[in-house]
């Protein structure tokens, strides 16, 4: 899992609003950094990393909520949550597939092999569906809009 980046100039004694601007700028950048190749189902750590970055951004937004105009905050929060949900939908399938494949290698009774293999096939189909559902959320244009929204949030907090 990617570690969170340190926030440059982070100062416990600075006003809450200043800190909000600093932190959100860094956490938002991490989300966009991890968006590359996220639809590649052979590299499942990418979805995981972007999902964790999204979680960290959401946590920061919730933490600093009083520093933002409520309408602006509400829209940005909903958009980030929708992205997180779409990433989560893919990630859940990735995890199940990984688990079941390992179970086939290490623990399955031969009597159950066929049924577990069927489960993997079903999960693969769901994984592709979840990936299709994720496509609009990680499209360049959508991410650019989100970036703009988060930039406004950062400006408003200062």
């Amino acid at each position, binding site marked *: 899992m990617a570690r969170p980046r340190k926030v440059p100039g982070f100062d*416990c004694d600075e006003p809450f609003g200043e800190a909000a601007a600093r932190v959100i700028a860094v956490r938002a950048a991490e989300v966009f950094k991890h968006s590359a190749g996220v639809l590649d189902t052979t590299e499942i750590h990418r979805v995981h990393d972007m999902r964790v970055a999204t979680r960290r951004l959401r946590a920061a937004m919730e933490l600093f909520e009083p520093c933002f105009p409520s309408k602006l905050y509400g829209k940005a929060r909903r958009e980030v949550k929708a992205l997180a949900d779409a990433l989560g939908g893919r990630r859940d399938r990735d995890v199940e597939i990984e688990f079941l494949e390992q179970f086939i290698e290490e623990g399955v009774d031969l*009597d159950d092999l066929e049924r577990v293999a069927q489960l993997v096939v079903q999960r693969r189909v769901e994984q592709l569906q979840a990936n299709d559902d994720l496509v609009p959320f990680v499209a360049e244009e959508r991410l650019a809009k989100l970036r703009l929204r988060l930039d406004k949030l950062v400006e408003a907090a200062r």
Partner: protein
Amino acid sequence: MKARRVKKLDPEKPLKENAARIVRTRLDEVLALAEPALEPTAAGAQHDLRIACKRLRYVLELVGGCFGREAEAARDAARELQTVLGEIHDCDEMLPRAEGIASLDTFLRTRRELLFRRFSDLWRADETAATWDAIERILDN
């Protein structure tokens, strides 16, 4: 599970003062949810505690630097609890799909039991209790 609202936050006041209120609220959530989650079959309570640990962990990742080593220890404890509770949740999600597949069903149930024991041991460990006490003392100062 909705997070408790943190009262009396003020954007004009220093980060540390606001952060202390937030960490305190998130820590209280974890402490309040632990007892019901220690019931072995209480999947819902364990899920709620996982979410509370996740919130505490991410808040401490952000502002733990304002509260010293005690906050680092609390963050690590929250992360460890979140991880093991997450693995328990994965078993709970997978179990219905394992119906009629004996070896998978047995494996998941056994794994869940072991993970629950690990969670219970973690929570009851003296270090964990001391970790919560230590961060509470820092927040109260």
